[in-house]
């Protein structure tokens, strides 16, 4: 059996009405395009990067003798962190390494005690290879400041992804070292107090396109 259905609709519209429909269609098309473009862009991650703190997520310095106050305290291997970094192989972006920066967290301008303060540079930080990053470069002890300062750089032109299990850095801290020993002054003469500062570390990928 063959059924033939035909439907004829005749629309009689005037010219202003056609223009408004066209404007609506254009606006709708723009919205769709924006939505699609943003969705496409969000998926464009050129790499992945992750810092993993193994231990030493809080570092105390206890100055309880005149010798420590005069000569400072060094905490070797205070923190050990793992580096995870992978290239997402996006065209135009080639991951070749990373730098590790540090600064005082949240723009803190001094080491704050309950009553008194210490200059930020009384605390110095150093990053060195602990595992798998032997070819990297340590910049030695650097003063804590409110600005980013590079502690360690690593590059590998034939990039292989880094994993926190196999690629680790050790962070050392020194506080109150006298100028004669390469520091920024001992804490002799400073007022007794409980001083605190938060140190922020940043892992930044480097390479063409980054």
């Amino acid at each position, binding site marked *: 059996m063959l059924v033939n259905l035909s439907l004829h609709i005749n629309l009689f519209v005037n010219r202003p009405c056609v223009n408004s429909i066209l404007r609506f269609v254009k606006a709708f098309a723009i919205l769709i395009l924006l939505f699609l473009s943003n969705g496409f862009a969000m998926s464009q991650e*050129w790499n992945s990067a*992750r*810092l993993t703190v193994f231990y030493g997520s809080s570092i105390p310095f206890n100055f309880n003798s005149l010798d420590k106050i005069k000569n400072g305290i060094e905490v070797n291997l205070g923190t050990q962190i793992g580096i995870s970094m992978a290239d997402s192989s996006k065209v135009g972006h080639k991951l070749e390494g990373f730098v590790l920066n540090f600064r005082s967290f949240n723009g803190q301008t001094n080491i704050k005690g309950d009553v008194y303060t210490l200059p930020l540079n009384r*605390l110095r930080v150093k990053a060195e290879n602990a595992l798998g990053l032997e070819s990297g470069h340590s910049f030695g002890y650097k003063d804590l400041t409110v600005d980013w300062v590079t502690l360690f750089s690593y590059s590998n032109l034939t990039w292989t992804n880094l994993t926190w299990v196999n690629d680790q850095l050790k962070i050392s*801290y020194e506080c109150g070292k006298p100028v004669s020993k390469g520091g920024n002054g001992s804490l002799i003469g400073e007022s007794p107090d409980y001083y*605190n500062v*938060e140190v922020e570390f*940043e892992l930044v990928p480097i390479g063409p396109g980054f």
Partner: protein
Amino acid sequence: MKKINLLAIMLLCGLTAFSQAVKDRSVIPVAVNLNQVLRLSITNGGNIEFVFNTIDDYKNGLSADGATPGAGIYKTDFTVASSTRWKLTYGAEQTTFIGTDNPTNTLTLNNVGFKLVNNGINTFEAAGSLIGATPAASLFSTPTKNASQVSALMVYPEDLIADNNTINANAGDAADNSFTLNWRAGTAETSTVALHSLNAVKLIDQKPSPRPDRYVVNVLFDLVME
């Protein structure tokens, strides 16, 4: 055409905002706990006794700086170890020496005095200079004019040594802050610091003459954080 341009700009904005390298951050709190270290040690000469038993002693007095053999017994050595800027206050416990045989017998404090000698690494401000005039100097002493003059024994409290208020604190260990008090009695030495000269009249000339007795007074030392 304008709408097409606008569309292109919006598309580019979307790309810029979301396409970037991935970084990571971590925050580690660091704490510095400064404990106070403050210690005064009298290492030698904790008990000074002047014995006047000759006319010459009455005429000339007895002094650690004198040529008499055994004058070294009139010396008090002390050190200060401090993690902060400090001030040493001293002085006699009573306003006069008091006789032990007869407590009504008294002797004025200014018959006894001392000269301050610095043996440590920290240095005094120049004699006669105002406090803080020499950045490298970390010690200041008003009654001894920065360890340049004698001072009569005063009643407690009298600031003997203080911080010079410069970039170099007087804080330090016993090697930094080591001093000697060279005591004297009846020497009638003068000081340019007002009221700090020793009694200008020697014991033999005083009127009334001091009665024979054993005169004593305790001298207190108090070390405080400045």
